[in-house]
Structure formats: C-alpha cells, structure tokens
C-alpha cells in the first residue's frame, strides 16, 4: 500500500512538474487577441490555433519525497489522521524554507458540480488550517477548488471516487 502511495506521489510529482512547464498566466493585451489561445490556452469562437506545446520533462529534485495528495471521505472535508504525518513534515519544510504553495481541492463526480466546488474549497481550507496550526504563514498559501472538473482517476467506481476526493499540495 505504501509503495503504491509513493509511486502515485512520484507519478503525480512528475506530472505536476511537467504541468508547471505549460502553465502560464493570462495576458490581457489586445495584441494577443488573434493568438489568445496560444498564450492562455483559450480560444474564443473560430480560431483553431490552440496547439499543445511540447513540454520539458524536468527531473525530480533530490529531496525526501513527501505525500502531496491527501484524501477525504464522501461529502466530508475533515482531514483524515493518515494525512497528519506528511502535512506536519510539509509544515516543517515550509517554515524552514518559506515558499508559496497552492492547495487544489477536488471532489468526486457524484453530486452537483457547484456544490462539489464548495466542498473542494472546504477540503483545501482544512489542509491550510492544519498547516497554519503548525505555524506556516497562511499568506503564502492559496486554496483553489476544482470541484469535480479535474478527476485524478477517470472511472466511476468507488475506488476512482476515493482517489478523486483529494487535496493536492503544489
């Protein structure tokens, strides 16, 4: 089980670092109107030029790999005891080397989308509050909910759902 979790964290960390390569903030310049898709990943009407760019495959940094994904029960935003050890270690790391982090809250596909959006935020806040209790400065933490819009596992089984009710620390 631990191996599985570690593999998943590794996989996720790798995927996240890859993703970071293609994340960009939106520009609001009028100039970008014609190729807005390329800058922000958004295409309004017609233009079909929103290509997927090649992304560099970063290598892992050589530090201890901590769990970065924390799971929740159905319709719940209470932190599970299993998450505490890893979060405490994250808190120590963040206190020693302060950096901005993002907590992305997610839900499973059951239930309505905007309600799940609220639930995802609650889960992110539960993690933020735990880190705050450990002494981490909350001004460096941003909580973003994705509700059920970005499932980690695409299926519709209970095990898919339990993998999707999560907070990802990025």
């Amino acid at each position, binding site marked *: 089980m631990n191996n599985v979790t570690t593999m998943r964290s590794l996989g996720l960390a790798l*995927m996240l670092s*890859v*993703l970071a390569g*293609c*994340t960009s*903030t*939106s520009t*609001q310049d*009028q100039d*970008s*109107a*014609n190729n*807005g*898709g390329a800058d*922000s*990943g*958004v*295409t*309004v*009407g*017609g*233009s*079909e030029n*929103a290509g*997927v760019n090649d*992304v560099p495959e970063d290598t892992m940094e050589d530090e201890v790999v901590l769990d970065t994904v924390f799971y929740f029960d159905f*319709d719940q935003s209470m932190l599970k005891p299993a998450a505490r050890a890893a979060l405490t270690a994250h808190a120590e790391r963040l206190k020693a080397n302060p950096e901005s982090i993002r907590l992305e809250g997610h839900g499973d*596909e*059951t*239930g*309505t*989308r*905007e*309600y799940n*959006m*609220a*639930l995802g*935020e*609650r889960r992110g806040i539960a993690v933020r509050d735990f880190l705050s209790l450990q002494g981490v400065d909350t001004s460096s933490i*941003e*909580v*973003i*909910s*994705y*509700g059920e*819009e*970005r*499932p*980690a*596992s*695409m299926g*519709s089984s209970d095990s898919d759902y339990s993998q999707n009710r999560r907070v990802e620390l990025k």
Partner: protein
Amino acid sequence: MNHLRHISALFRLSVLFAACLTLFAASAAHAQLTIEITQGVDSPTPIAVVPFGTPGQLALPEDVAAIINADLRRSGLLRPLPKDDMLSFPRNKYEISFRDWRILGAEYLVIGNVTRSADKYSVHFELFNILSQRTVHSQTFEAGLNQLRDLAHYAADQVFEKITGIRGIFATQMIYIEAFQNGNEAQDKFRLMLADVDGARPRLLLESKQPILSPSWSPDGKQVVYVSYETGRPAIFRQEIATQVREQLTNFKGLNGAPVWSPDGRTIALTLSKDGNPEIYTLDLASKKFTRITRHFAIDTEPNWTTDGKGVIFTSNRGGKPQIYQVTLASGRIERLTFEGGYNARPRVSPDGKSLVMVHRENGVFHIAAQDIASGDMRILTETYLDESPTIAPNGAMLMYATRYRGKGILAAVSLDAGVKFRLPSKQGDVREPAWSPFID
C-alpha cells in the same frame, strides 16, 4: 457591443480579446448530437407532414418536412406518419383527398411549399384538421438563405401550438460543455458550445485547456455567462453570442461560481467565498456593485432566481445535508423548500414559478426530481445514472439534463410529466451542463 466595454478600475473588469470578433461558422470539426427517442406518450396524435413542394428544379439544402417531422416526434405528443405510407403528396388544398388521409389514420395534415429568391427563402404551410376538412392555420415565413432550418423549426412550433395549445420550443437553442479528458491534464480540452435544441448546427463559443463550467443564458438570449479557469483560478465571464465579445466579471480569491442572470437582465446571482465561506451574492451589471445575500457558516451555492426576480432559491447544507432554500431579497427571510431525502441540490424554477426541478439522491443514486412548490409533492422524473444539471424549456413542458450512458457524459431530456424521454448521444468527449435558451424571437 460598445455597451459591453465599460472598464471599471474599481473591479478590475476588462474586456478580453475584444478584437476577436469573427463569427464561428458551423464546421464538420464539431460533432453534432443526434437524438434517440427512448419513450413517448401512450397515444400521441397522428399527423401527416407531406414533403414540401418546390418550384421547378430548386434543390434545397434541408428537407423541411423531415425537420418538422423530427421536431413533432421528439415532443412525444404527436406521431408523424412515415412518408412511405402516404398515397399522395398534395401541394395545395385542392389536391387533398381527405378520405385517403382518414383511412391512414391521420388526424392532422401539413402541406407546404418553399420558394427561393436572390437572398431569401420563403416557406408557406397549411395545417388541416382531417375530420372537419378545415384549415386550422396557414402562414408564410421568410428568412435568409442560411436560415431554412430555422424556418422549418418555426413552422413546427406553429403546428405544435395549434394542435396542443402549448408554445413550441423547436426554434430554441442550448449551450453546453464538451470535455475531453483522458487522465493527462496537459491534454485536457474544454469547450463551451451552442447548438439548436435538436443538437444540429453546433458552434464553438469558447475553447480552453482549463475547466469551463456553469453556463447560463441572459434572459434575452443574446449573452451567456459562465465560469472559466483560464486565468489559473475560477472567474466569471460574460460573452455576447453574436460578437463573441467577452467581459470578466469577477476576480476574487476563492470561489467565483454558479452565475445566473436575473429575469430582468440587470443582475447576476453568483457564489463567492471571498469572505471566507461560500455565500450567495448579487452583482448589479450597471453599477458593478456586489451585494451579499446569505450569511451562514454552511455552504450556500447554486442560486436560481424566482420567476418574479424577488427571491433566490439556492442549495445549502446549513441543516447538515444539502437541501434547497429560498431567500426573499427585500426582507432577507429564508425558508427551507425541500424535506424529502438527504440530498437535494442545484434547483431550477419552472417558467410558471410553480415547480422546482433539482438533483435528488435516493438509495445512493442521483436523479432529477420535480417538486410542486405549493404542496411540496416531489416526483422523480429520471431513471438514468448520475443525473445532474437540469434545465427547463421556456415553455415549461420539457427539461434537459446531463447523465452518463455507456461510460460517457451525454445529454438527455424528459417531459415534466415524465411521459416522453430522449437522449442526445455524443460522438466525442463528455457532454454536460446543458442550459436551454429562452424563447428567441
């Protein structure tokens, strides 16, 4: 479009990509949803719609009678006779043999003609009652050369209304979300689409690599409002359909969700968590002023306006589980509306204001349910799986919703009396969050 271009420094609103005004022409790249009727009423009224006549060698891009037939069949209330059963194709009333149609079992007959001039089509049709042998209705419509399909839908609306007394919704449209996700976020693609309500003529309104959700119409059917994550965070945008001009309406920390336009078009109700907790707010579009409506430590979200615009109905778990509540805006008074079951959420009010539809969980399964507001009686309308996002047609007779079918997200529809059911399977991606347009004049 100039009226959309207010720029308010206070709220950091900005018109994005205003120069991108190209109208998106329907293209083969956007797969059309096609309809499969899964249940009709027991004894729909038989009607014959004869192939429409054209002068000389005029070839039409659309089969007008076939479109009318498909519309009427989808209503579930009428049963169009197959073309192969017809003994003749009359083009005017003098060619009609009422006896033949009576023997075929038709109660009504529609005949018509299409003519074309340099820049427009003209459709003339006549509806007959076979038993009385009288004309019930006749009418001529004209429209541009790319609008023959619209003319067919208008004719179907008229025929349907004359026979059933219910205003037709065949000329209305829908918006919905199309999502392509394979587990690799880098390849995610989300699209906001606009299509005829029969799934034809899909048009792209917005495409993004980040989620798009909660699309909703302005009451005049000219604009849409939705949530987009394109900035890396959820933000609410409005977009004018004809010009594609967009305006970002919110940019708060936390949730920016569930936008719905008020019946008078002046205000948008939405969910924000900028004060630490999900609450319902209203945004006055002229002044850009936000007003907080709910104050509770629970989740308050998924607002929908009452038909008179004086109240907002919403989902809250203030009682422990998600249920539906109504707040009266003037007094702030809050009333709980649903009591049956442990999960009732995302309400939509019927156009007559008398009933609610919502997502209801029973025995762990999510269905669409309707509740009579006055009596509190609830009926479950669907029997599919993971049903959500109900949207009611502007005539109040049907609703569309999102469900799963063969492992994919699809749209389906059911009449409010649950007698008629059909689904619109998608050839590609997951289709969800339909929003039925208002009547478009």
